[in-house]
């Protein structure tokens, strides 16, 4: 039995949805759901939750590359079978969590993980850097301006000690999106690594008739830079589009709608750094990340400029911020002019908003600080 291509609809099952979650929960989780009282991070990467029943669950959090193989998942299963009655979970930030129901089961699990080389780093808790949420990049996507897994590996190698320790003023959430579509919450991260394009789309007049709905391509442009046009292809006049390059902000939405308008380019593409976003409602309201470095080049395989920029910002923050203060709260308290100075980032007009609602970000008070920017 199996799929029969001659009768594709016979015996077909659809709309089953995901399996029920309860069958996958460890017994101690099942028994204590809704009864948890408090928790404590007993060491970096190890959490203990206490239930009103007196039960405890110890969670060991492990970083992963997110881009993983069947072989790797089998190894994860083997660990879960050996220590965790065959159960495990993943976090929203691509960490793996192994749970055990007694303290004496923690060390054997940690020892096992440590025996497997660098495959299962324990950490990602508390006031540290946890795993980087990221996208596909050059491994699978058609619109990226940079790779994802490569820069993430390079940055995490450099920030590794912050993953395995809890020495920062608060948690720092780093995210990477390989283009402006921003799959993942890069727009609200403490430090965001964002792939950007800097050359307007080319127009493939030979293909555009076959692959694009011209009105959709024209309507896709948020600044009205894409306009109807005519061109000659093999001696025939065809309907096509043109791009007013001065109005192009390189968002790539036209390419999403029209495959005949590619804009990726080895020298045009690279990475922008945004900082100060957050999701949590703790103390201050959720914030968007702000653009502080408009462009860094793509330099595979280890993106040294990006790694250096992220590390510099992180360490300036670590040195200067108060306990509990997130990157964005710190920048707002000291003032953005001080942020640029303390992080040694040159300020350019590219950090001044000129898109919609830009005025909301212009300073309309006499309160400012005399940093080196004031000549």
């Amino acid at each position, binding site marked *: 039995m199996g799929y029969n291509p001659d009768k594709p609809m016979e015996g077909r099952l659809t709309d089953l949805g*995901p399996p029920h979650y309860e069958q996958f929960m460890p017994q101690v989780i099942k028994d204590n759901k809704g009864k948890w009282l408090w928790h404590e991070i007993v060491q970096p990467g190890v959490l203990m939750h206490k239930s009103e029943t007196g039960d405890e669950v110890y969670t060991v959090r492990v970083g992963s590359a997110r*881009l993983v*193989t069947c072989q790797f998942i089998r190894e994860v299963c083997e660990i879960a079978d050996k220590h965790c009655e065959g159960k495990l979970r993943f976090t*929203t930030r691509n960490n793996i969590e192994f749970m055990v129901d007694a303290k004496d089961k923690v060390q054997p699990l940690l020892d096992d993980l440590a025996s497997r080389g660098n495959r299962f780093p324990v950490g990602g808790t*508390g006031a*540290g850097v946890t795993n980087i949420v990221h996208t596909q990049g050059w491994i699978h996507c058609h619109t990226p301006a940079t790779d994802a897994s490569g820069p993430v590996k390079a940055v995490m190698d450099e920030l590794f000690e912050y993953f395995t320790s809890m020495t920062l003023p608060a948690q720092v959430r780093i995210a990477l999106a390989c283009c402006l579509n921003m799959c993942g919450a890069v727009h609200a991260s403490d430090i965001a690594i964002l792939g950007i394009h800097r050359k307007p789309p080319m127009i493939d007049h030979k293909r555009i008739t076959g692959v694009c709905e011209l009105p959709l391509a024209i309507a896709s442009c948020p600044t009205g830079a894409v306009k109807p046009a005519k061109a000659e292809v093999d001696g025939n006049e065809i309907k096509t589009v043109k791009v007013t390059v001065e109005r192009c902000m390189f968002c790539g939405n036209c390419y999403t709608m029209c495959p005949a308008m590619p804009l990726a380019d080895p020298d045009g593409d690279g990475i922008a750094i945004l900082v100060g976003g957050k999701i949590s409602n703790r103390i201050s309201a959720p914030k968007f990340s702000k653009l502080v470095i408009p462009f860094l080049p793509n330099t595979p395989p280890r993106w040294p400029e990006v790694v250096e920029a992220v590390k510099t910002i992180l360490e300036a923050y670590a040195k200067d911020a108060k306990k509990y203060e997130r990157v964005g709260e710190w920048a707002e308290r000291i003032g953005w002019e001080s942020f640029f100075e303390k992080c040694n980032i040159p300020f350019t007009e590219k950090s001044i908003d000129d898109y919609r609602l830009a005025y909301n970000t212009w300073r309309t008070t006499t309160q400012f600080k005399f940093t080196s920017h004031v000549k």
Partner: protein
Amino acid sequence: MAKHETPLLDQLETGPWPSFVTDLKKQAETKPEVYDILGQLELSYEDRITHWKHGGIVGVFGYGGGIVGRYSDMPEKFPGVQHFHTIRVAQPASKYYSSDNLRALMTLWEKHGSGVTNFHGSTGDIILLGTKTENLEPFFWDLTHELGQDLGGSGSNLRTPACCLGSSRCEWSCYDTQEVCYQLTLKYQDEIHRPAFPYKFKFKFSGCPNDCVAAIARSDISVIGTWRDEIRIDQAAVKEYVAGNYPANGGAHSGRDWGKFDLQKEVIDICPTQCMWLEGDELKIDDKECTRCMHCINVMPRALRPGAEQGASILIGAKAPILEGAQMSTLIIPFMKISKDDEYEDLIELIEKVWDWWMEIGKNRERVGETMQRVGLPTFIKVMEIDPIPQMIKEPRSNPYVFWNEEEVPGGFARDIDEFRARHKA
């Protein structure tokens, strides 16, 4: 398929963080097409540009979402990735798994696909990276028949809903995020699998205002747990924190010497509403002033707990920047009970009201948050039949340009210019 030289990628095999390159190489030993993935990625590292073609519509019969078509632009050089379609498989709530289930899924993926995956995609699905068009139906058959599992969403439809771990392992969750996520995912299978919306639509369920699934920044409907009575205080535990016997913030800062815990400085003074104070050694909270930011509870999890009258705030309209700029969700319903007992009646009614309206007036590729911006919040809440309250805004408008309705003005808008001129010469 032969190995390719990958001198650039090989440099990503060193360093303390797990290496995806090492992992892919190991998988290639049993799935040779993975050599072509590595080869094409190496070429991208040399060329500094992607080698994947734009799009390609593929899927399984009867579904319009769940599979993303992908083709190499160098198929002669890398035949193993000529077709490299992505399959999104709906994840179980809170991403708990059994090893049996994961192994079965991996066996299926090695049989029908490349053996390469993401745990997980940004929306929350299990992502299976890379298979051929002819494998899609056999994979889907086996997935549904052998595993009883299903695809997630892609395209202009409801994307696979996601939740935090909720009360399964968190003391702060103000409702059962897993159960509502599971129930609504089942209820809206048609909306997940058959695109009928102007653009994508996301639900995310967070148990408390810490918002661990980023609902407020990423989901069209953000359901974020909260409470409306008093924070529960254990005064004895407060004393333990002050005495330094319990670690502040659950031990989150233990890697650095921040000095002795200072309740005044670290909690009372940082509280955004200044609603806490000490009377002797008793911690007092003026709960009606509290905006439930979670800071004090995060700092002293053994002493403070969310109130007992729990529910969720409903916010609508978050999205990433494409196109009109990023938006956070806007608070629409300050407090709603989220209970299985009434089968989530109120939430479902709200969701379907939003959809009915947005499907009618939303433009192609316009997220609901953008539609709300276009028509204005007053129009949106009128359509939703929700009364305006100050909780919906940060501050009142500072311009006087109100769109008055004719029925709000005595005598209406129709007037007689001749009668006006009889009294007012031009």
